[in-house]
């Protein structure tokens, strides 16, 4: 099997980008990624975006964005798996190179959420529309029910949830692309207005605009570029029933556990061998449950582990050095690509003040909805 490498990365700042449209943001990130790669052509591209149709009334974005990049004519496809759209775009690019169909593929992600649409409604379309959203449950509401069940089964506390936000904001302060580079305290999280009990506003990732892009090619070609790069050790996508109520245990995310097991097996790795991880902390409870599904801690032990600093930069296994979705921002389609960029930067040794010393192997875990889909990539640095 051909080995695939990430040789170029590019991002816009995440936030409320009033001056930039969907196409502006994507083009900025894609041009940055192409420039970073040092390559002079793109054979094909994939774009992850959850709902440009609902957010800005624009579908058919693959040709639109290829054209804006000056590449009208190349094959391009829009990939959707709710908040896992970005990770899935990278996976499709990976598969296209593995298959031999293309040599240089761009994978991007973009979402324009602050142009005035009903964001709560748009996001709720990632749930079962007739049997969840019909009854008024929102995305924070679904994760709140996961949190309530986790608290009931394992004694997880609101303070432990809050510490996830505190840690991720502490990391995000050092990320120039992050939306909220502000320190957070447990008290501020606990006093934030309720969104869906027990989750307050500061347990939730923000509504963001932003884009991210990576350039992938064969490891063979990457070697000739003469600079550090990251290879994809494995790329996994797992689906599950999308309605939360269909899970055997409401306090779990089985798609994440299955994806992790497949990824470890394919890469021949154990969780202990990972040096840095980006996880999908759309809500504080999500990061806790994902830690358990990835096998970083036993089920029910994630809260105390976060309180003890296990996942803080400098701890045993740093999680979300980028600031995570919570501090960096969560333009849903861009998130999965941005996570992979953070891991690639860490493995190239270019993460600045967020750098994990001697990071060699890292994982990016991206998920859609309340866990109806999960995409995991494990990357390894090469120089």
């Amino acid at each position: 099997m051909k080995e695939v490498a990430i040789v170029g990365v590019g991002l816009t700042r995440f936030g409320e980008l009033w001056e930039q449209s969907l196409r502006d943001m994507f083009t900025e990130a894609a041009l940055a990624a192409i420039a970073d790669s040092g390559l002079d052509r793109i054979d094909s591209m994939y774009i992850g975006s959850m709902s440009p149709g609902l957010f800005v009334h624009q579908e058919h974005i693959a040709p639109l964005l290829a054209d804006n990049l000056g590449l009208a004519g190349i094959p391009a496809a829009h990939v959707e798996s709710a908040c896992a759209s970005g990770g899935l775009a990278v996976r499709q690019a990976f598969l296209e190179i593995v298959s031999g169909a293309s040599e240089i593929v761009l994978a991007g992600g973009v979402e324009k959420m602050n142009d005035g649409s009903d964001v709560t409604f748009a996001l709720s379309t990632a749930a079962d529309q007739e049997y969840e959203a019909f009854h008024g449950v929102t995305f924070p509401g679904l994760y709140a029910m996961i949190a309530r069940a986790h608290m009931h089964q394992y004694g997880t506390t609101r303070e432990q949830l809050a510490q996830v936000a505190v840690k991720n904001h502490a990391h995000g302060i050092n990320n120039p692309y992050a939306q909220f580079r502000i320190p957070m305290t447990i008290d501020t999280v606990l006093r934030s207005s309720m969104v869906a009990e027990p989750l307050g506003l500061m347990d939730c990732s923000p509504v963001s605009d932003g884009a991210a892009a990576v350039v992938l090619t064969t490891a063979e070609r990457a070697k000739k570029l003469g600079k550090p790069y990251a290879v994809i050790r494995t790329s996994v996508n797992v689906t599950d029933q999308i309605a939360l109520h269909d899970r055997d245990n409401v306090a779990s995310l089985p798609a994440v556990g299955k994806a992790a097991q497949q990824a470890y097996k394919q890469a021949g790795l154990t969780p202990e061998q990972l040096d840095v991880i980006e996880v999908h902390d759309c809500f504080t409870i999500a990061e806790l449950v994902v830690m358990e599904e990835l096998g970083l801690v036993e089920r029910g032990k994630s809260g105390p582990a976060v309180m003890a600093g296990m996942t803080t930069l400098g701890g045993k296994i740093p999680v979300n050095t980028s600031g995570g979705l919570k501090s960096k921002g969560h333009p849903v389609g861009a998130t999965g690509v941005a996570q992979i960029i953070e891991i690639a930067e860490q493995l190239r040794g270019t993460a600045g003040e967020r750098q994990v010393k001697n990071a060699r192997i890292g994982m990016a875990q991206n998920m859609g909805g309340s866990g109806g889909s999960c995409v995991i990539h494990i990357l390894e640095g090469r120089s």
Partner: protein
Amino acid sequence: MIVPRYTREIPQRFRLEAAECTGCGKIVFPPRRICPKCRGKTFSPRNLSREGKILSYTVIHVAAEPFELQIPFAVGIIETPEGARLTAQIVDCDFSELAIGTRVRLVMRKIQQEGHAGILLYGYKAVLER
């Protein structure tokens, strides 16, 4: 809410019509062509009883537009005695009465309203067994 999308689900929303897999006995709600447990293709019709218990719940303070006038409201995941699971609002109670394991009854209520002169959308909501 678009009318055909609503009316297609009426058997489930009004009468809790489910299906029992003849192969493995799993209760599937709403009915599907393929059993998610054993991939069987034959089912017999079965209505869910209107009882259940709360597996988890939340109180929603920020809602999508059709529900904005209802906030704050409670939503829960309910398991019926047949083992079917569904999501429903939990109403007619003080939020402090909500707890995992609490027994509920599913009743017919208005869920949403189609604008000012459109159709009223009915379905099931849960009330506490007292």
